[in-house]
């Protein structure tokens, strides 16, 4: 059994650790590129949202490397991604691409099913499996901690791209790390390297929060590297969505002391209930970012994403009440780089000028 899974930002690193931990041979799909997207778009329904298309591209590219089993998440509720695993299964079958699919439904609804599937996949004694899961968790936390450091450095570094180069190497080293000790060593070393990067002498950084649907927020291919673009424009990006927090909120039921989303506390009175996907969190996080003194918020969503459309329609009220400017960007395979760049520059310019006026 050669197992593969869809990409979502740095998720591969975490999943690879967990799956190798339970004794599976893992095929990480090639990094998402234009080719991945083109492959997916060719075979996916046109109106499906981007995650389905890119995932499909991932599977087809992983097949070329010999993968025969897909592990992915299903879901319940208004977000369509819940049934995308089934749609993908059918599309792959029609293409004559033989894959076995192991779909994990949300553990709070289908706990026994999850248990059965883990038992089915597991190839090792339980202690080893637990070790793999612990490693995956440690790596998720390490990646997220380092990425936050990079987000802080991007607008401040003297030469654009240096922090990202260090971060790229960190990902490789974390991937190779086999023990808690090694993970800690990598984090410490990389943090030291990042701290030693030369900075611009006097930068006036503005802070922009990123909210939205998790896939478009975390996957740089589909959001056209929005965080790097903003960094180059002198913007410190903050976001609420991180893999470690997602795992903590959804799999560990928020047991660990990590900052989580509490849309039930932050989103009302603008949006009072779950709307699927991350729509509720988008509204809640916007309120949180406004309270924490961010200068603006950018909401990202795949085109036709229903939960984010609901959130989008609520944003003018949030903007009115909190005074934080919100710009919504819908992404799909048609999104042009030049158009995105102009919108980002204009948004950042607007925030700078507003800030200048407020400060002066």
């Amino acid at each position, binding site marked *: 059994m050669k197992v593969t899974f869809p990409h979502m930002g740095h998720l591969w690193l975490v999943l690879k650790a967990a799956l190798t931990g339970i004794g599976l041979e893992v095929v990480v799909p090639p990094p998402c590129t234009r080719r991945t997207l083109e492959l997916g778009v060719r075979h996916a329904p046109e109106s499906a949202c981007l995650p389905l298309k890119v995932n499909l591209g991932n599977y087809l590219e992983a097949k070329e490397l010999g993968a025969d089993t897909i592990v992915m998440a299903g879901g319940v509720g208004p977000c369509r991604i819940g049934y995308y695993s089934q749609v993908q299964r059918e599309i792959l079958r029609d293409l004559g691409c033989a894959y076995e699919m192991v779909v994990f439904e949300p553990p709070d609804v289908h706990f026994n099913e999850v248990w059965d599937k883990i038992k089915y996949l597991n190839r090792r004694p339980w202690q080893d499996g637990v070790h793999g899961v612990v490693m995956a968790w440690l790596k998720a936390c390490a990646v997220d901690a380092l990425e936050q450091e990079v987000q802080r450095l991007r607008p401040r570094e003297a030469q654009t791209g240096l922090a990202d180069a260090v971060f790229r190497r960190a990902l490789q080293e974390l991937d190779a790390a086999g023990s808690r000790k090694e993970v800690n060593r990598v984090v410490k070393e990389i943090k030291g390297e990042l701290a030693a990067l030369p900075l611009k002498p006097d930068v006036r950084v503005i802070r922009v929060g990123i909210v939205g649907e998790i896939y478009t927020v975390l996957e740089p291919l589909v959001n056209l590297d929005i965080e790097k673009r903003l960094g180059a424009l002198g913007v410190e990006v903050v976001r609420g969505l991180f893999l470690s927090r997602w795992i903590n909120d959804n799999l560990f039921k928020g047991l660990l002391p990590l900052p989580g989303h509490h849309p039930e506390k932050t989103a009302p009175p603008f949006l009072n209930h779950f709307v699927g996907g991350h729509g509720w969190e988008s509204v809640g996080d916007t309120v949180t970012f406004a309270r924490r003194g961010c200068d603006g918020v950018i909401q990202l969503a795949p085109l036709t994403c229903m939960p984010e459309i609901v959130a989008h329609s609520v944003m003018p009220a949030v903007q009115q009440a909190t005074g934080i400017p919100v710009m919504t960007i819908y992404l799909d395979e048609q999104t042009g780089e030049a158009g995105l760049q*102009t919108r980002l520059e204009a948004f950042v310019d607007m925030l700078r000028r507003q800030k200048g006026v407020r400060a002066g």
Partner: protein
Amino acid sequence: MTSIYLGIDVGSVSTNVIALDIDGNLLASVYLRTRGQPIPAIQEGLREIRATLGREVTVAGVGTTGSGRGLAAVMTGADVVKNEITAHAVAASQVVPGVQTVLEIGGQDSKIIILRQGVVTDFAMNTVCAAGTGSFLDQQAARLGIPIENFGRLALGAKNPVRIAGRCAVFAESDMIHKQQQGHPLDDIVAGLCEALVRNYLNNVGKGKEILPPVVFQGGVAANAGMRQAFSRALGTEVIVPEHYGVMGAYGAALLAREARPKTSAFRGFELTERDFRTGGFECRGCANHCEVVELREGKEVLARWGDRCGKWSNAVAV
């Protein structure tokens, strides 16, 4: 010897160059068609500006804007590179102090900019449709054999504007042809078309934004009397078209260069109109991304590269 500030707006359809004196007064302006070749257009624009001004000028600052702003900036040595939204907002508030809404429709894209107390508080650009309004009007005028300058004026005499589907240019065109075949008079059809485009703009670009007067209408399409009339009717307020409505982007870029007051301008000299610039590109095979890298060369020297995700090529050239 007079000091001037240059503003260069390189758009998809037109390239505009403007010269301001140090007090911000407009000395000269040039409007050219880009014709898909921004480099010769920029060179031609600068040549004409210099011809208009005579030789005795020093350039105190250069600003570029428009979709070709990056290219123009590297070529000319710009001090300020700003996107179209900022440039248009700055220009509009210079011409009409206290402006609260800017409607801007060019060849390819359309924007709405909301200002309050002189600061941009909100903006939008065409996304799904309402694109190519200027080009579409151009095309319809050509199809009907009416010079574009007279096209909009036709609408003013209309008694019963025809209702035309304005969701997107393709629907609008087929619906319009249908109405023509039914025998509606031309002026009613042109008026209907203008109303459809305005409706489309307000629904897709201006969606939900609070449009307060004074309203300024600029960009190439503002030349169209029919569009001006349709806008003031739809908004129920006067719509101001500034004198230099077609070159407001370049004007704004020049104003921004003036505002920045560079100690010495990075301008590479008017001689650049005689230099040999070339662009080329290649696909990088360094990783799986296969980025399309574009480079700008002057003679043999590489001035700039862009398009790579990792910075391998763009960082290798000091811009």
